[in-house]
Each structure stands twice: as C-alpha cells, then as structure tokens.
C-alpha cells in the first residue's frame, strides 16, 4: 500500500520525462523535415520511451489524485487529458512503425504535443494555483487600494476605471478614434475632433453624455453597438460627477454625493475584501464533513456564511474550527442555539462580520459589550434576547449598523426615543399588532354523525382552541356567555336545533353555528309526490325522501330529488293514525347551480287521504345575494294532531332572482328527507 502511495508521490518527477522526450523527438522531426535531411536519432525508440513514461505518469497521477490532496474542476480536466495523452502516445509509437505519409504523421504528432502541453498546464494550475500564468487585469473597480471612501479621488479612482475599461480601448494613442485620447487627463481636457469632451459643472452640454444617451441604433451612440456598453448606474454616476465637479481633483467628500451615488461608489470601493486570505477548499470541506453548515458566499468572493437552522446545538469543536476562517466569515446565523454571553467573546474574533443573528438566545447587553471588534457589522439580530436599554450605550461599537432587530426584548419604544440614531439605521421593535384589530374567534364545530335519529342521539361540540369556552342553546335562541356552557356531550331526545358559539379571553366571540337533529318517530309507509322529480335528479324515486339518508352539499350525490321551476306537493301515508307534532324537510341551497331554498311551506292533515285541512303555513326568507352552499332543514311545528295522512306543500323560488348571473332563468328546488315526529 505504502509503495503504491510512494508511486503516486513520484508523479511530479515522472511527468517531466515524457514531456522532455516527446518534445525533443517532435522538434527533431520538425527540424530534419525542414532542412530535408534524414533523422539522426532513433525516433521509434524515443516514442517508445515517451509512451512508457506517459503511461507511468498517468498511472502515478491517478494514484496521487485518489488520495485526495488535490481537488477542483481542474483536476478532472487534468486527469482526462493525461489519460488521453498516454493513450495517444502509444498510438503514435504504433503508428510510426507503419507510417506512410510523413506529413500526416507530423500532424498527429502535433495534436499529441498540444495535448501534452495542455495536460502540463492544468497540472501546473493544480500545484501552483489557478491563473499563475495570467497577468492580472485591472480590477473592475479601483486600482489603488483606498482605505477611506470619503477621501477617494473621484476622477482617478472612480471615473477612470470605468472609462479605461469601456472607452479607452478605442480612444488611445494607438487607435485615436475621433482624435480623442481618454487614457490621460490631458486628453480629457483637450477633447476630440467634435469639440470638448466634457464641460465640468454642465451635465446638459457634455459630449460624453450626449453620445452615451443617444439611442443605441444611432451611429454616433457610444460606446458603439457591439462593444461593451456602460451600465445604467455607471451613466448615472458619470452624470452626477460631471454636474457636481468643478475640477478634476475633487474627492468624494468634497462633492457630497446623494445616497444612490454613495451606494454605487461603495460598491466599487470595497477595501475590506482586499487582504482577505483565499479560502482553503480542503479545510472547508473538512469542516463541512463535521456537519458545520458553512458555505462560500459565491465563487468570486473570499466570504463565507454560516447558517445553523433554528434549534440546533453548536459544540465548541465546531466553533473552534470556524476560527480557522475567522477573517472570511461574513454572516453568522446562530438563532436559538443556546448561546450565552460568554461565547460572544469568540464571536468577537470574526472581525469581518456584516451580519450577525444571535436572536432567541439568553444574551444580555453585557454580552454585546464584548463585541468590540465588529466594526463592519451592518445587521444585528437580537430579537427575543435579554438585552435591555443599556444596549444603547454599546451601539457605537458598530458604526456601520443598518438594521437592528429588537422585537421581544426589554427595550421599549421609549428607550429608543431617548437615543439619537443615524437616519440610515432601521430599528425593528416588532410589528404593531393593533393593525390586526380585535380578532374574532373561530366558531365551534358540532360533531354528530347522523342528523336523523330514532330514540336519542349524543352530540359533541369541539373547538380548535383548547382554552375556548363553548356556549349553546337548544331552544332556537342566540347563545351568549349567559347560555349553557358546554362540558359534556349533549343527549337529545327530541327534534332540536343546536345553536352554539365560543369565547376566549382576548378574542372577539365567535360567529354562531347551528345544526338540526331530527327525531324520526314514525316512518311513513308511502309517499306521493306531485309533480314527479326531474328524471336527471330522481335518485331512488319517492322513497328517497323517507329512507333516512340525508343529502350532502353536492346536489348530484344521489340523495336529492330535483324539481325544476315548480311547487311541490307531497302526501305522506303514515299507515295508521298517529300523533304528530312536527314535520321537517331538507333543502339544498346552491345558487351557482341554480338551486334555491323554498319560499314557504303548508301542512295539511287528513284521516282519509282525500279531505285535507290546513294546520300550519310558514313563509321563508330567500337569500338576497350570493351565499354559501348549504343544506337547510325546515322544521314545521304543528299543534298535536292525530292523523294518518299529511300533505306538505312547498312553495319554490321557480325563477332566478335579479342579482343572479342568469336572472329570470328557471331554477331548482332540491328536496330530501321528510321527517315526522
């Protein structure tokens, strides 16, 4: 095993051999071809050596890469290029012995050499770091490092980098487009063939801005279409500068830029990231393997963010490991992680923090006092901590603070009003709950499987809030806090309507809900209906009304009888003379489906089924606008009567009301379950 490892370590040594040998053979071959002589070395032998060492290099490289010291995208590329080179060199050696066309062979050799060089390059990048060959471009910001934004030189530090990047590629001594030179101050002052380039203090008449603002379809629009264009914020910045500056030597402070420009300038000058060490990827991966949720913010920045989900626990080991990156960590989210004041000392080590969330921990102002080095902090989240008004004294430790979260702390509005904050600081004390006003409690739910019962039924009433008090009535009246308090299931022996509502401290009493429970003492033996229900909604025929099954809110569930635009008359035969004191029937209301509840009902009784005498007539109010789909039970109480036949005449709505989407159209009456008690 160790031997194999050693073989891997020899990779940097072996790899130079094929490079040297193959390139020597290649150059020799090229040279003799050029001077049209015969080769003087043994090319075949050289190719054989080359391919043996290529293979050894590739093999040792694979061993080396598997032990995990190297990683990244480059490794992948290097690996495959290496393998390709090795295989290519075998082919080359094999091909040389059978070569027909010398020129073709030389071409193939060239490809292998290119592969070889590329492999070498990617390998070099792995050891020496990416971009070790490239000469740094001028950064997309400032060339000189600036410690203090207010002292930055507007022209040199901010204007020139933009113009150099986007204009000076044509307006320089080599190209001299329009006789305008923009790489030096002299050129700016001199202007070009059209005239002066800019007039400081006059943003209206400066050629630079005129050209930039021309529509891009215009020929004279600058930069010309196809070239790198100025961004909106860059134009805004240039416009501001030309309008505000008197001469080219102004600093940011002298011109006191407005907020949006200030932000632009800040984005260009970020002195804080200049000296930050690069992230050591393998170290980072090692920490991630230990379960520390740390992530690089983005591929171009040296910053890291650590985000523990709420309620996680952080061990000391993890914290100590993060210390290896103390300068890189920019955001630290440690909400509800059992932090205390003592641990804040460690957090003070993360000097480049801009966001710190230590909410929902038992932290006091004294802990915050320890955060003396976090002078770059912009966001501080302390909600639900134990900080108090003494915190105000420590806020000066965070000169750049922009957002401060103090909801559910001991700090009051009053405490804040005594301190003067800079305008740019947003302090959150929590949302004003009064916005939501008095909130009405949800109504209780009446639980009862069947609503038609024979002898008795037990009804339960529930509420989602366990602290809610439930009140109810059984006499049809509206319940209040003076009504019966619900404790145990209600046992009903008679047809009853339960009305109920709930109250809870701090909430408005709920709406009323009601439900009827119908006692079916006598089952009619026969049921005649005039007219017949519509054939589409005939369910199981006349029996449907007396089968003990109630229809649901779905009109098509097969338990409803539907009648189109007609009153309905029902004659029930009780089989023998019975004592009756109420008759009830169910109706559906679903205005979208053109189904309305009835307008009235009349009960007549007869002992012979022919001569009926009216005992009760009721009218019902119709809905005057859209209303929910609902099943309505109509209970008609009548004086105790002995009878064998009961006639129930129901007066229907017949036509859609005016407010309906289809006013005047025929509408329906849907009936179910007639219950006699």
């Amino acid at each position, binding site marked *: 095993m160790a031997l194999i490892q050693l073989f891997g370590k020899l990779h940097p040594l072996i790899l130079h051999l094929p490079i040297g040998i193959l390139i020597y053979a290649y150059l020799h071959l090229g040279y003799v071809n050029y001077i049209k002589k015969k080769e003087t070395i043994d090319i075949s032998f050289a190719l054989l050596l080359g391919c043996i060492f290529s293979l050894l290099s590739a093999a040792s490289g694979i061993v080396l890469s598997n032990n995990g010291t190297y990683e990244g995208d480059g490794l*992948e590329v290097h690996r495959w290029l290496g393998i390709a080179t090795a295989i290519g060199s075998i082919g080359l050696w094999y091909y040389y012995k059978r070569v027909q066309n010398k020129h073709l062979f030389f071409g193939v050799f060239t490809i292998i050499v290119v592969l070889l060089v590329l492999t070498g390059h990617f390998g070099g990048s792995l050891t020496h770091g990416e971009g070790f060959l490239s000469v740094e471009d001028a950064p997309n910001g400032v060339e000189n490092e600036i410690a203090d934004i207010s002292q930055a030189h507007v022209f040199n530090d901010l204007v020139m980098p933009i113009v150099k990047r986007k204009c000076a590629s044509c307006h320089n001594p080599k190209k001299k487009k329009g006789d305008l030179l923009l790489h030096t101050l002299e050129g700016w002052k001199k202007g070009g063939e059209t005239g002066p380039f800019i007039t400081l203090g006059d943003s209206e008449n400066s050629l630079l801005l005129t050209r930039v603002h021309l529509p891009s379809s215009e020929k004279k629009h600058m930069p010309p279409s196809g070239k790198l264009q100025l961004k909106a914020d860059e134009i805004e910045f240039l416009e501001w500068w030309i309008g505000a500056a008197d001469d080219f030597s102004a600093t940011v402070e002298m011109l006191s830029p407005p907020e949006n420009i200030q932000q632009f300038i800040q984005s260009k000058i970020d002195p804080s990231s200049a000296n930050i060490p690069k992230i050591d990827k393998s170290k980072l991966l090692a920490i991630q393997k230990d379960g520390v949720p740390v992530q690089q913010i983005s591929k171009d920045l040296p910053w890291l963010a650590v985000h523990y*989900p709420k309620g996680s626990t952080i061990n000391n080991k993890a914290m100590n490991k993060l210390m290896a990156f103390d300068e890189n960590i920019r955001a630290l989210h440690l909400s509800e992680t059992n932090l205390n004041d003592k641990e804040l000392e460690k957090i003070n080590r993360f000097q480049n923090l801009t966001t710190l969330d230590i909410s929902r921990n038992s932290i006091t102002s004294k802990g915050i006092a320890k955060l003396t080095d976090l002078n770059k902090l912009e966001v501080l989240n302390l909600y639900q901590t134990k900080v108090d008004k003494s915190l105000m004294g420590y806020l000066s430790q965070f000169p750049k603070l922009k957002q401060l979260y103090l909801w559910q702390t001991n700090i009051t509005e009053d405490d804040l009003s005594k301190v003067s904050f800079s305008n740019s600081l947003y302090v959150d004390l929590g949302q004003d709950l009064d916005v939501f006003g008095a909130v009405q409690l949800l109504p209780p739910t009446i639980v009862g499987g069947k609503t038609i019962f024979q002898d008795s039924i037990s009804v339960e009433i529930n509420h989602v809030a366990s602290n809610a008090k439930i009140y109810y009535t059984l006499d049809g009246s509206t319940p209040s806090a003076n009504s019966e308090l619900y404790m145990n299931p209600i046992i009903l022996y008679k047809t009853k309507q339960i009305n109920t509502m709930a109250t809870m401290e701090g*909430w408005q009493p709920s709406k009323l809900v009601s439900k009827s429970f119908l006692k079916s003492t006598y089952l009619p033996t026969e049921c005649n209906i005039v007219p017949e229900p519509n054939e589409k909604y005939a369910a199981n025929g006349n029996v449907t009304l007396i089968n003990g099954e109630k229809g649901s809110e779905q009109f098509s569930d097969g338990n409803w009888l539907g009648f189109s635009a007609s009153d309905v008359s029902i004659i029930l035969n009780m089989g023998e003379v019975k004592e009756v004191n109420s008759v009830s029937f169910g109706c559906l209301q679903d205005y979208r489906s053109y189904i309305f509840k009835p307008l009235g009902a009349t009960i007549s009784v007869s002992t012979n089924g022919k001569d009926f005498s009216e005992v009760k007539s009721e009218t019902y109010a119709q809905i005057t606008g859209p209303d929910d789909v609902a099943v309505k039970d109509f209970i008609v109480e009548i004086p105790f009567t002995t009878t064998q036949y009961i006639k129930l005449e129901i007066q229907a709505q017949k036509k859609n009301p005016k407010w309906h989407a289809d006013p005047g159209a025929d509408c329906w009456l849907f009936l179910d379950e007639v219950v006699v008690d």
Partner: protein
Amino acid sequence: MHKEIQERNYGMNRRAFLAKSALGIGTAALASLFGCGGAESQETSRIIQRIGGALGNLDFAPKAKRVIYLFQSGGPSQLELFDHKPLLHKMRGQNLPAEIRMGQRLTGMSSGQESFPLVGSPYTFAQHGKSGTWMSDLLPYTSKIADDICVIKSMHTEAINHDPAITFFQTGSQQPGRPSMGSWLSYGLGSMNDNLPTFTVLLSRGTGRKFGQPLYNRLWGNGFLHSLHQGVQFRAAKDPVLYLKDPKGMDRKERRKMLDQVAALNELQAQQFGDPEITSRIAQYEMAYKMQTSVPEIMDVGTEPDYIYKMYGAESMMPGTYAANALLARRLAEKGVRFVQLYHMGWDHHDNLPDAVAKQAKDVDQASAALVMDLKQRGMLDDTLVIWGGEFGRTNYSQGTLTENNFGRDHHPRCFTIWMAGGGIKPGITYGETDDFGYNISKDPVHVHDFQATLMHQLGINHEKFTYKHQGRRFRLTDVSGHVINDILA
C-alpha cells in the same frame, strides 16, 4: 461478452470515454463544473447534497436563502385586487374593441360568446403606504405592507388553461415532465437542515370556490432529477406526511435496526447495478426516519403564542387553512427548509366573481400580510423571498351575462399581477403597467421565464448556467429564454 456489464464495471461506456478523453476536453470540464462528473467520493457527494448542492459555489452572492411561494391557484383577478382601471367603469357594458383584443385566443368557455362586455371592479381602489401602491379594499391587510412589497403588474404567460399555466410557472414548460422550481433549487443549492425535506408543499382550499380544480402532485415533482429533490406534501391530518409512522408494535429502535439492514442491502444493490435511484432511496428512508420526530414537532403549532394566531388570523388555528399553512411556512423556513410552496385553490371565478373573489381575498389577505410582517420582525425577510401570485389573470370583460351586480371573468394570459417581498427585491415599488383597458401590457413586460430567472438570481444562481443533462439535452428551468429584471432588485 455483455456490453452493458462491461460498461457498468468501468462505470462508463465507449462514447462517454471518448467524449471525456480525447475528444471532449470541454465535456469533461463542463461535466465536472456542473457536478455530473461523479468525481466526488460518495461521502463528499452526500455532504454536498446536504449543504452544498450540485452547484457548489454560487455565481453571485445570494440575496435570498429561501423561498416561500404563496401560489394562488386558479388565476386571481388582477382587476379586482391590484390593477385599478377606471376606464372599465366608464365603458361598462360596451364591447371589448377588436384593436385591443388583437386576436387573443380565448378559452373554450367564452369563445362562443357573442359579445365581450367590459366591466370594472365593484371594489374601491386606493393608494397605500408611502409608495402609493394601488390596492382594492379587498386587501385591507396587504395594503398595510404596501411599502414592503414589490407589485409586478406586467406579468404575462403563454398558457391559457390552468394545468399548463401552473406547470409552466412551476417547471418552465407547459408540458409535464420537467422538475419543479423547488426541486431545481433543492438539487442546485442543497439543504440547510438535517431532518426536514428541502422542498415542502402545503395545500389549502379556498372558500370562494370550494370544488375548484384539484392540483396534480407532479407540480411538485422532481422530473428527471433524483427523486430526493421532489416536494414533500404536509397535510392537515393526523398523519401530516403519509406513510411516515411506524407500524403498530414497532418501536424506534427496531426501526433503526431495520433501516440499517435495508440500507446495507440497498448499498449492495447500488454497487451491483449503479442505479442512482437506489442511493436516492437510501437517503429518503433516512430522511423519513428523521422526519418521524421532526415533523410532529413542526406541526405542533400549539407552541405558538396567542398573538401570533391573532396576527395570522383566527383561521390559523384550524389546520389545513391557508392561514395555518402560512404560519407553518414560517416555522419551516425557520428550521431551514429551502423552498416552501403553498397552493391556495379556488381563484377560478368564471361566474359570480364579485362574491367569490371577496371570499378568496379574505382567505389569504391577513395571513399573507402577517407572514411578511412576522418574517420582518424576526429579521428573516432580508433573506427570505416571499412571492404571492397565480398562474394567469382574468379578462376585463364579463364571461356570461353581465348583470347589475354580478359577472364573471375568463382566463387572461396577457397581463396579471403578482407581488414579491424580501430576498433582495426592492420594496415599496410597482413595476410594469397595463393599458387603460387592463388588457395589454404597456410598459416593462415580465415573462414567466423572466420571473424565474430573477428568482434564481436572488438565490445566487445564473439561470443560463444551471443545467441538467437528460436524454442528450441540457435542460434549464428557464428553458431557452428569460432575463433577470434588474429594475426590481434592491
């Protein structure tokens, strides 16, 4: 011998070998860039799945870490909620001019209609907040957060019926089969927590139209990505996540043992067949085991104080309502769930719109506003992107007969309104405009792909580079278009 077996043994076939070695330097580089290279050891790839995601390092510094998407399914009427069009009152009952309609295709539901009578909103509009954002009196609470949200009035889509339109919003394609937005993000960004799924889904039914279209669960499907990334639906029932509970008589210890054994067998199987779905399955069993304790904990909203229920509205006490889901969304976000997708159904008001839209608005108004305010006071709004919106808008004319105080509106893909809050979106602005008829966009159109591109940008992803190769093609959430809307970025 058996070609497939050989390929399996080498972990690669001839084509892939050639593509990767001699011919395809680019392929090799790309493959490793986008994490389909399979170069990482299994352990590393698991860690990456957990915290890093396939993208590893992001293209941009992300403004948002997570998304709460309050999807209003059915197509809420922008004309009743956000887009104030006085002209429609003046021209009430008049036919929609042909030069405004410009041949817009209609749904089968109103294409037979003889006339298209314009109708304005019966609700009163006013400007709210310092930003002066227009909203109707159906949104009394959302109007309180006018300065915290960015209202986009110029959304437009390509689809005209519900399922293709929602599928388009969620997956970037009208045809089913692509991964949902949440799955893409789960795949790309990975998880921020150990014991909850990265992508969770919460459904509620609206009171405006109780029996509206259902939603297919493929809307939160993983498409061609690993099934690890599919959305997990949390239901308002005794078992919030189906099939999570241990069977009777099995305790947790026993379960653990069983899972370990099953995992060992599955590992074996994975080595033999190399089907990535097997490793996905191992991870899912593991996640399910962890969720056995984490899910009951997160669903136990009883631990929330009373004022939180008042804030989200009384309905938040009732599991399964939109308000309860909004509250749950916040709890999930706090626990590190990357993408919480809510769907509130019932916005499809072809008839009786005035009544139904009021009920729907009441369902969602308070809880949506409360969610934004609650995130804000917790300091979470900065890195949480909240989105409110449906799959398309509704027409400016009445579908069916226009009566004195009743009408309906048909689907309208050419313009509709959504709002976004937090996550680095500029607060207190209104972006885009529609014409006086509220029919066409007159300024700054935002296509669904633009919206998706912007969403990804806020999470640090360049939507053009984030691809997944499947069946020989690289797929993106934004397909082949989409531009980041820079003007709405803070």
